[in-house]
């Protein structure tokens, strides 16, 4: 077991990043022209990094598996992006954003990285506005804010329920400008299938052209992974269908440590599952908890009546409703952080109060908000505030303006009108805090290999606060990596182009081809989805919202046997040298089958509950997560040694010098 060095600069917390930037080596513009960088991914992290590196003068090659960089999964982010602008004058500051993030992450993240994130957050908003991102504004023409869970200020900037789309299109436009200048060469419909390491440094990748099936070699002086999260290891999640761990996992196999794989975020407000054929789950943004109140009935007989259709939610009297978040957490109410809200929903449903047929749903109700807004509008417009139907109409208009697209999405899926009856929601897998281990420079344990955005583990500890992933992706790509990578590349100004005609590239290509051949020649009995669904079920049952030693041990065994079965019996139709969507899926599921085991192993090793990682054995009498700071205040970074069972643990101790480590309370 080794110790890991995070490379955090010396000095006072608030001066670290400034001093660091003042003292790093720079690459002069003429030399940048001779340096190539590969970026895998075009989400907020990869898109912003590609644009900025190209603008600085590097030759950038960027890859994504979709048919256009604009379709990266960041596009789906709904609710907003945080920044410590303090435009509302409600007491926000860099320190408070830092504090909220560390506390929200249950004291399992690295102080210096989080402080830097908070520090650059304000630049993000300036940058995006300059790029033409149409954030929501108030009537005075200034930027509007909303609140997200786990904080007491309004620091979230938003563009209706499409914030991710607007930010990503901003990054995409910045990329387009560089593509037009020839500084980014864009490889759409390409999937990275391996990293190539030469003399201990990352020097390229092997990619498959998903249109033709051709295997390609690409070299560079550094490789940046911005390939997103691995929530799809659960099969059902709010992630896009193609979201995968392949890029990160292949890097792991080439020496990049994988950190805290068990830290997963289960988001409290998603549309419940409906059938066996279901392919994905849909998020209802956390922003809805600004105005929606969560409840279940107090009485079992009302639950029964709801389930058999003899009672409607709107007919349940106020005093018979249990607003359990407001009851349990009076200080934060409906805006407790996600891990807390999800566990509370599970607790009520497990106790038999779930409001739909499957017993796995709670209500998210807008009627109070509709009436509140309606009254305000009636007063503003000089209308009769006692006319209930008028007030309701006015209120609905406001709610529509704020969340219209989310309500429409809900109605299209569920076929019920959420303006009239409360939404039904249930927790679903949403985000992975774990990821590739990186140091302060965002470099992995392989020199020259970087990981940014959701793909790395860095800033959110054991639980991410809402609206902070978009912030981190853009911070990494626009403002952090462009500095840190320069410091590394300053040694490469005389290296010259990296040849792809070497034994390292030969070997990597050979391995990739072998795996693809094995998959298509196997001609087994079961489809790829058959295995993915089975894996998903193991993960959800044993590594979901509540975990136990026994369950995790079982999961490890079950995943291993499932993996063996996959390689014996999977059936992938079609060939290699063509567009073959089943083959793409097969490669991704093969990697999930390895990651899943490491995930369970990590969860088993962590004998405490923290953030999204909840071990039933470690709970307070009130059922809250109970940390063990004495033994587990570290990042678990796993080194690949063959089978996931053989992975070796490296610990990065976390030191808190600027914040008092306390029990995390939202009461």
């Amino acid at each position, binding site marked *: 077991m080794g110790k890991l060095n995070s490379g955090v600069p010396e000095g006072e917390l608030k001066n670290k990043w400034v001093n660091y930037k003042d003292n790093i080596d720079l690459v002069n513009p003429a030399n940048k022209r001779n340096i190539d960088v590969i970026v895998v991914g075009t989400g907020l992290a990869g898109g912003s990094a590609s644009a900025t590196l190209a603008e600085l003068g590097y030759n950038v090659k960027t890859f994504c598996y979709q048919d256009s960089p604009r379709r990266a999964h960041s596009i789906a982010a709904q609710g907003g992006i945080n920044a410590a602008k303090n435009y509302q004058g409600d007491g926000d500051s860099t320190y408070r954003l830092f504090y909220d993030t560390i506390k929200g992450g249950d004291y399992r993240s690295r102080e210096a990285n989080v402080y830097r994130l908070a520090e*650059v957050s304000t630049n993000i908003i300036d940058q995006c506005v300059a790029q033409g991102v149409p954030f*929501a504004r*108030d009537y*005075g023409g200034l930027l509007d804010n909303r609140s997200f869970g786990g904080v007491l200020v309004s620091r979230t900037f938003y563009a209706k329920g499409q914030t991710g789309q607007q930010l990503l299109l901003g990054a*995409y436009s910045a990329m*387009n400008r560089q593509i037009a200048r020839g500084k980014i060469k864009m490889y759409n419909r390409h999937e990275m299938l391996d990293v190539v390491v030469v003399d201990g440094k990352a020097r390229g990748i092997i990619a498959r052209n998903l249109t033709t099936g051709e295997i390609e070699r690409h070299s560079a002086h550094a490789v940046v992974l911005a390939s997103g999260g691995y929530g799809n290891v659960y099969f059902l999640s709010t992630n896009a269908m193609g979201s995968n761990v392949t890029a990160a996992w292949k890097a792991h196999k080439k020496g990049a440590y994988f950190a805290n794989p068990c830290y997963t975020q289960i988001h409290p407000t998603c549309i419940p599952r409906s059938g066996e054929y279901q392919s994905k789950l*849909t998020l209802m943004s956390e922003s809805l908890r600004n105005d929606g109140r969560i409840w279940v009935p107090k009485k079992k007989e009302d639950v029964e009546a709801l389930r058999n259709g003899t009672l409607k939610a709107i007919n349940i009297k106020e005093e018979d409703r249990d607003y359990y978040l407001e009851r349990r957490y009076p200080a934060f109410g409906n805006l407790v952080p996600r891990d807390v809200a999800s566990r509370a929903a599970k607790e009520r449903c497990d106790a038999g109060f779930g409001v739909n047929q499957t017993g796995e749903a709670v209500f998210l109700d807008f009627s109070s908000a509709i009436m509140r807004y309606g009254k305000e509008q009636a007063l503003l417009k000089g209308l009769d505030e006692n006319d209930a139907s008028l007030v309701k109409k006015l209120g609905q208009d406001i709610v529509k303006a704020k969340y219209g697209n989310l309500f429409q999405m809900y109605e299209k*899926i569920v076929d019920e009108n959420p303006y009239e009856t409360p939404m039904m929601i249930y927790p679903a897998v949403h985000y992975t805090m774990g990821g590739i281990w990186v140091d302060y420079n965002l470099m992995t344990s392989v020199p020259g290999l970087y990981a940014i955005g959701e793909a790395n583990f860095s800033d959110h500890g054991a639980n991410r606060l809402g609206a902070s992933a978009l912030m981190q992706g853009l911070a990494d790509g626009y403002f952090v990596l462009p500095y840190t990578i320069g410091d590394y590349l300053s040694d490469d100004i005389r290296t010259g182009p990296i040849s792809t005609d070497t034994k390292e590239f030969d070997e990597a290509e050979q391995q990739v081809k072998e795996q693809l051949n094995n998959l298509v020649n196997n001609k087994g009995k079961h489809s790829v989805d058959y295995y993915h669904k089975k894996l998903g079920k193991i993960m959800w049952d044993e590594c979901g919202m509540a975990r136990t030693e026994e369950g995790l041990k079982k999961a490890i065994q079950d995943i291993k046997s499932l993996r063996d079965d996959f390689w014996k019996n999977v*059936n992938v139709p079609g060939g290699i040298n*063509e567009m073959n969507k089943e083959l793409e899926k097969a490669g991704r599921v093969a990697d999930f089958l390895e990651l899943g085991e490491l995930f369970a192993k990590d969860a088993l090793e962590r004998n405490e509950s923290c953030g999204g990682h909840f071990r039933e054995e470690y709970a307070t009498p009130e059922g809250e997560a109970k940390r063990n700071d004495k033994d587990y205040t570290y990042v678990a970074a796993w080194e690949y040694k063959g089978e996931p069972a053989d992975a070796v643990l490296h610990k990065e101790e976390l030191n808190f010098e600027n914040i008092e480590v306390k029990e995390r309370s939202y009461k």
Partner: protein
Amino acid sequence: MNLKLKIWRQKDANDKGSMVDYDIQNVSEHMSFLEMLDVLNEELIEKGDDPVAFDHDCREGICGMCSLYINGEAHGPDRMVTTCQLHMRKFKDGDTIYIEPFRANAFPVVKDLVVDRSSFDRIQHAGGYISVNTSGNTQDANAIPIPKDDADLAFDAATCIGCGACVASCKNSSAMLFVSAKVSQFALLPQGQVEAKDRVTNMVNKMDEEGFGNCTNTGACEVQCPKGISLDNISRMNREFLSANLKKS
């Protein structure tokens, strides 16, 4: 419900392609259209046949990756939704459903229902951006107030997902709705005005060069657009284009 599907199958870009019939049983009305195709594909794989290739990713109507021309309509019979948001409750037992790719000269078929929409990206390369560097050292975000109505209109235009339904539903395969959405977003914001004239000229020229047709104001695009992008954007772009090119000549 039980359905008859007639699906366009085409091995690759060079293949001629044809419609092929499939039967599918026990389709639940709660399934999405793509989940129905997932089930069909599972059955095909089971039988040793080649599954139907189609594009999709987010499955919630935002990435713009899914396409499909269903019973003669881009994204199918429902309004304001993409194919991935279309649910089987819009169909009834015994229906025959025709499923084809989005068709346009500028969107060549890659395989089955998958088309190549990279022409859309190339139009964006021609001017779909504001030339500001990404250093973050711009002015404070609140330095220029923007009237809420302009900001809201810019936002509405910016919600285009680049799916191409407008092109597929236009008898001339025109990309005017798509291009005008981007041009309008920037034209409505002070930040976008500096380069407005070059932007509209370059993007429109590129659109023509990529082989998209002319706009004859039939308005089919607006009807089929899953994001409700308004024809007003086309008028705005026409005004921008005229004024840019009057000044130039």
